[in-house]
């Protein structure tokens, strides 16, 4: 055997079979995952769409006019050079409204994720780690929520809380955490029996420390996949609530509510309802593509199945 004296490249260091440090292992894993992700054209497309969503939300004032400014003489104009997507029944520029709508969509998606994911994560991890009665009670509750149709649950909650985007967000969060709790519990159960958890416990670590330091970090990747895949559903539910009139209230440029307004003109002024619909489809698809790609790459179970 000859000794390879050439200097290892960064790539070799990242792809090393036996990483020398934790950081190297982590970076290597991230590098391998992103390589695999880059080979999946749909996932790349999804990532680009979400990136575009972020950028558009950020620079909306630079590229679009006031989304609320009415211009009654120019109402219901078809798409043209001046109004790329036409104008609505109050003469507002639909392009500007669609662009500003990204902010509302982003707000909903981020807030729901922040509310629902940690809640589900903690409930699932506690349930799986302690088992016994804690598990039975928490999972019983989770299953009851899971066995109910999500949209109906969200509808009923918003109806009770009253219309409004904050209430819609709370209602959607309430109806989405159980899915995360289920996943977190299932994964915790497998990790719980691992030798290294037993080792940490033998060293006298408290339950809180084990869950926080050794279980939650391992749950994040499957949770990220799940949340990404759920985003489309969250966007659709929010748009649905807006469409029915229970979500964002006028004059906010929320896509679902815009479709609802355009409903009366669908036959003659098709663009009013159609344009925001395309926006919803594109953004939801973006999250689906990325989530699907992430799952193929990060979820070892599905990777084994080739």
């Amino acid at each position, binding site marked *: 055997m000859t000794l390879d004296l050439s200097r290892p490249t960064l790539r070799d260091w990242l792809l090393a079979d036996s990483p020398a440090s934790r950081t190297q292992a982590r970076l290597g894993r991230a590098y*391998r995952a992103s390589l695999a992700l880059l080979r999946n054209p749909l996932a790349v497309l999804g990532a680009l769409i979400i990136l575009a969503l972020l950028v558009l939300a950020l620079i909306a004032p630079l590229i679009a006019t006031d989304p609320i400014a009415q211009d009654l003489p120019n109402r219901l104009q078809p798409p043209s050079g001046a109004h790329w997507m036409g104008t609505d029944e109050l003469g507002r520029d639909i392009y500007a409204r669609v662009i500003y709508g990204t902010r509302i969509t982003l707000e909903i998606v981020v807030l729901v994720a922040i509310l629902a994911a940690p809640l589900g994560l903690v409930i699932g991890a506690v349930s799986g780690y302690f088992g016994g009665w804690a598990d039975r009670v928490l999972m019983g509750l989770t299953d009851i929520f899971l066995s109910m149709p999500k949209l109906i649950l969200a509808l009923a909650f918003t109806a009770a809380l009253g219309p409004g985007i904050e209430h819609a967000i709370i209602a959607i969060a309430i109806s989405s955490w159980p899915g995360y709790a289920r996943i977190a519990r299932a994964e915790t159960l497998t990790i719980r029996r691992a030798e290294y958890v037993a080792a940490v416990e033998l060293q006298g670590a408290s339950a809180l420390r084990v869950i926080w330091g050794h279980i939650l970090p391992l749950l994040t990747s499957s949770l990220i996949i799940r949340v990404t895949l759920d985003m489309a559903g969250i966007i659709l539910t929010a748009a649905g609530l807006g469409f029915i009139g229970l979500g964002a209230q006028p004059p906010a440029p929320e896509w679902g509510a815009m479709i609802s307004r355009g409903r009366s003109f669908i036959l003659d002024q098709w663009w009013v309802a159609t344009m925001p619909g395309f926006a919803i489809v594109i953004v939801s698809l973006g999250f689906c593509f990325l989530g699907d790609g992430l799952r193929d790459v990060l979820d070892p179970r599905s990777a084994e199945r080739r």
Partner: protein
Amino acid sequence: MTPLLEVENLRVSFPTPRGPVEVVRGISFTLGRERLGIVGESGSGKSMTGRAILRLVRPPGRVAADRLSFDGLDLRSQSEGEMRRLRGARISMIMQDPKYSLNPVMTVGEQIAEAVRAHARMSRRALRQRVRDMLEAVRIEAPDRVAKLYPHEVSGGMGQRIMIAMMLIPEPDLLIADEPTSALDVSVRAQVLDLIDDLIKRRGMGLILISHDLDLVARYCDRILVMKEGEIVESCPAQNLGAATHPYTRALLAAAPRLDETRAELPVLDRSAA
């Protein structure tokens, strides 16, 4: 007379992010109507060799060879349909663990009958009789009752005899047995191997016995190939195994416990031995 199977420079590779990795690296051997053993540790490429002969290496795995011929037929140039007519009917394979290799939702009888029906048309009654005969040939009592069972209802040893029945019922010329006993209880291993041995001798078939167990292969085979990291490192008649020269084979032999053991500690395989 042409040999049953000729393999020359067979290579099997799988792509990885760091380029293709070869699991079989250019092996060559020929086989007549005899019993050939392929031994090696797990990962030595012996199972892939068996699957490559049947052309059942799943993509993205790739198979290449200078020559791969069975009974004068070039296996590399056969169409998928022609391969299908060869599989089962002329070359067959017994797999490792009946728990996974038998279909859980079909009865044992259906699965055996299907192996015949894939290659021959016959009446329902003749088929049933043939299945019954075959089950008796693998020494299963009450074949009619067993034929109606589902795989989870039979023991591992019986499952493997069912597997043998299924693979021998179309009367193939070559049988590949891939670790046929490693998933079984020690107590039934010899029975199953004796059964395979008896059936292939009686039918004058060729056998490739793939195993990690050197002793077992030495007992049931005429010739032995020792594989290591995708290459054949030793090839010798079974009775000359004691005189094997390659250090890896010697190491494998030394690592096996003996009945008249006098050593206090078994030597561990030294993997730096090239």
